[in-house]
């Protein structure tokens, strides 16, 4: 059959928009709808720390206070472009004679030249990243992937998340790093800012946290207010002490204790006014708001180490690629730019590196529906004042750089990138985290 996945997905989205549920009075907003999202009050480090001392019971308070008081750790942020972002649009090979033959309808134009390889140009929507690149703050990987690429979203994403081409691994690569380098009492060390736990952060031993946004972690109960409400919130921590000896009961209690700690940690971020020196993209999209909250959390000295987010947009552009890609990249790049400037304005930019990745790139030849199908190598960016800012892996060219399926061949391996980040940024032995780490060459990623 000739139907394409994307038009079905478009229909689904339209229905989803129409059918979103009404909000009951006083109910918190559902994830992803942006209906009543509050903005943040980023308060001082002193106030954030005061929260740790104020609690009566939290299981993790001492650990978090200790972690927050310890010398500040480098932070690695990962941003996932879901669906397989088209490498040949993000940095498009304007100077490659085959480009317009393979992409008669989809070839991008109007962007600035990528100075490290004049065959490539930045997608116009990525101009903010081009500017940061000009300042030496962006490392570009124009064709990153792995041997024997798997074209299933699920499988390829899984490989990137676990840091190995192994379908059986259950812990994320950053989760294993935290199991080895983290502490048993600080759930903020691994923070998923997507409303559920990103598999990249899945640990086997130490606690990690998942929230929708730092201003979204409140607990409300109908007909409960004032002093009694405060006592009820404290009682969530009490539930953390109910476990006993049964493993399932213990887990349920442990998570209640984590929820209690997290609520206390994030209390200063629940508010009505935003004070930020930098303007983030406006609108209801959650990605810029989450980055804004993250910058405030980092500046407030919360003991974060690894953070995972998903970018604006759906990059599985089997159809209508031009109209889907532009707005998604515009918001994503503008948000990342604002985040970087915010970190700089708050004086914490030297502590943060941001890795932007996707599970694969897309087929070089466009399909018959104004889109592209699943491909192999994709684009990644590493952003930050400490990023080396030097391209990793060459662009392989369309004449000889495509595999038998017509997909871009990888010129750098994501596992080498992970090993380099572990060693050069997190100062940790990659062999303890990544299977067969020694077999991957490490690019220079940090300056």
């Amino acid at each position, binding site marked *: 059959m000739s139907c394409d996945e994307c038009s*079905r997905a478009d229909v689904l989205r339209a229905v989803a928009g129409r059918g979103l549920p009404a909000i009951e009075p006083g109910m918190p907003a559902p994830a992803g709808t942006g209906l009543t999202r509050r903005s943040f009050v980023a308060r001082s480090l002193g106030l954030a720390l005061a929260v740790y001392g104020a609690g009566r019971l939290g299981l993790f308070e001492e650990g978090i206070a200790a972690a927050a008081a310890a010398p500040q750790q480098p932070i690695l942020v990962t941003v996932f472009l879901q669906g397989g972002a088209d490498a040949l649009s993000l940095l498009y090979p304007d100077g490659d004679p085959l480009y317009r033959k393979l992409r008669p309808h989809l070839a991008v134009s109007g962007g600035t030249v990528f100075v490290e390889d004049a065959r490539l140009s930045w997608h116009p929507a990525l101009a903010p990243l081009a500017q940061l690149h000009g300042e030496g703050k962006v490392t570009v990987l124009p064709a990153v992937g792995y041997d024997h690429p798997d074209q299933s979203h699920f499988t390829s994403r899984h490989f990137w998340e676990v840091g190995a081409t192994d379908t059986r691994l259950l812990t994320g690569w950053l989760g294993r790093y935290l199991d080895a380098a983290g502490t048993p009492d600080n759930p903020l060390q691994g923070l998923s800012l997507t409303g559920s736990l990103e598999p990249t952060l899945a640990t086997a031993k130490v606690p990690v946290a998942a929230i929708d946004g730092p201003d979204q972690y409140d607990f409300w109960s109908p007909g409960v207010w004032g002093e009694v409400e405060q006592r009820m919130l404290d009682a969530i921590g009490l539930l953390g002490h109910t476990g006993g000896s049964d493993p399932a009961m213990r887990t349920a209690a442990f998570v209640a204790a984590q929820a209690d700690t997290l609520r206390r940690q994030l209390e200063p971020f629940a508010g009505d006014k935003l004070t930020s020196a930098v303007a983030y993209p406006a609108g209801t999209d959650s990605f810029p708001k989450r980055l804004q909250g993250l910058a405030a959390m980092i500046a407030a000295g919360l003991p974060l180490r690894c953070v995972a987010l998903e970018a604006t947009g759906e990059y599985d552009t089997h159809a209508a690629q031009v109209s889907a890609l532009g707005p998604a990249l515009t918001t994503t790049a503008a948000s990342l730019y604002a985040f970087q400037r915010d970190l700089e304005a708050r004086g914490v930019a030297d502590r943060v590196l941001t890795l932007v990745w996707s599970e694969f790139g897309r087929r070089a030849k466009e399909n018959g529906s104004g889109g592209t199908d699943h491909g192999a190598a994709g684009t990644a960016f590493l952003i930050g004042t400490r990023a080396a800012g030097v391209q990793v892996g060459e662009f392989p060219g369309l004449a000889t750089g495509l595999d038998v399926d017509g997909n871009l061949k990888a010129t750098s391996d994501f596992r080498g990138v992970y090993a380099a980040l572990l060693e050069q940024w997190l100062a940790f032995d990659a062999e303890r985290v990544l299977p067969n780490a020694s077999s991957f060459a490490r690019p220079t990623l940090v300056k």
Partner: protein
Amino acid sequence: MGAAPTYRGHFGAPQAERLLWRAGFGPRKGEAEALAKLGLDGAVHALLNPGFERLVGPKPHDSKGRPLAPYDAWGHDHCWWLDRMVRTSRPLVERMALVWHDWFATSNAGVGSQKLMLEQNELFRKHGLGRFDRLLVEVTANPAMLLWLNGTENTKDAPNENYAREMMELFTLGADRGAYTEHDVREQARSLTGWTNRWSSRRGDYDFHFDETRHDTGVKTVFRTSGRYEWRDACRLCLSHPKHASFFVQKLWSYFVPVPPDAPTQRALEAAYRSGYEIKPVLEIVLRHPVLYDGPRMTKPPVVHVAGLLRRIGAGITTDAWAWIGSLSGQQLFYPPNVAGWDDTRWLDTATWRGRWIGVSQLLYDRRLDPSKAKHTADAQTVLQRALGFWNHPALSERTQALLLRFAQSALSDAGSQRWKQVQYPVLVENALRHLIAMSPDLQTT
């Protein structure tokens, strides 16, 4: 064949309640006591042979009082099934449908049609307590599955291995057990070629059928046997594989008991299954097994937690908010995270715990007590007993009861000597206790 161990202890209301949670969505008022009167044998028999379905309780509607539109409106698919879980007189049938939804995890994210998803769901209800060989054949030719795992894109010229691989890895044999090779995957994919359908912008995907001209008619070699296999043969070869029965019974067992079966139980389960792919005899062993009653507790999946709370208080579906609440809690029906289904070992994290909290807020909102109407004071123990009574007196550990009582005492003591607080705080505390009870580890697990 040795018989499997059977529970010999007292079968009272607590045991009947656990059975109703594992094999359904928890008891309605009086249901555990009534089931206990049947004894273990009678109770298991009743669950396995429920007769015709009766839907008990108020009919579902959305937040504006309109009937649900499960084929069309976003989230109404989730609410429609949740309602069925709440109102059914055949809890094990619905619970097994949930098991099969997880086992053959198909997501509407890849199908794009609530109608096709609900048609697949009906298969799980129809065959859920029947024969697995029939279920597998039906699922293999099911439109939602054909879309989800690219069955309609699997042609003799361009084979697609997706379904062939998952059929063996997730549905019948299991990975890393030496049951099949990559060569078997490729050959099974050839056997499965030939399905197709039509699509139009108005109707979406329709007219699913087998097209001989797209089918690879050549000889295939699967599990070291050769023949001109087609899709029914692909199913049959998996089902008759010597490693299928052991995989099947272990996987089915894992939905009901959190620790693996011991060797005698495993043998009994396999023997029961081998006699003809019947699901009921396997379930009978599981539901009568001592470890279900004496063994460790299990975390309730989010929809089971919510359905159970609604059943406890005799409430129905009065909002479509349950769909996004399900999503926040980590389980939106018809949207499993991937083809492997939901991860039953990771239901609870700080985000999904908050999702469950919001679900309880939703449920309690219309039932909240108004403190301005209070006239009398009440002590902590009285308030706690009232809140437990709201939930129909669930069994809580002494430890949990003591901590809840401690909360009630401190909150009531805040009233000090102010009369209005002395009268109103017991009501606020009762509202809060209802919430905390529903969120306690005791009610998150069973």
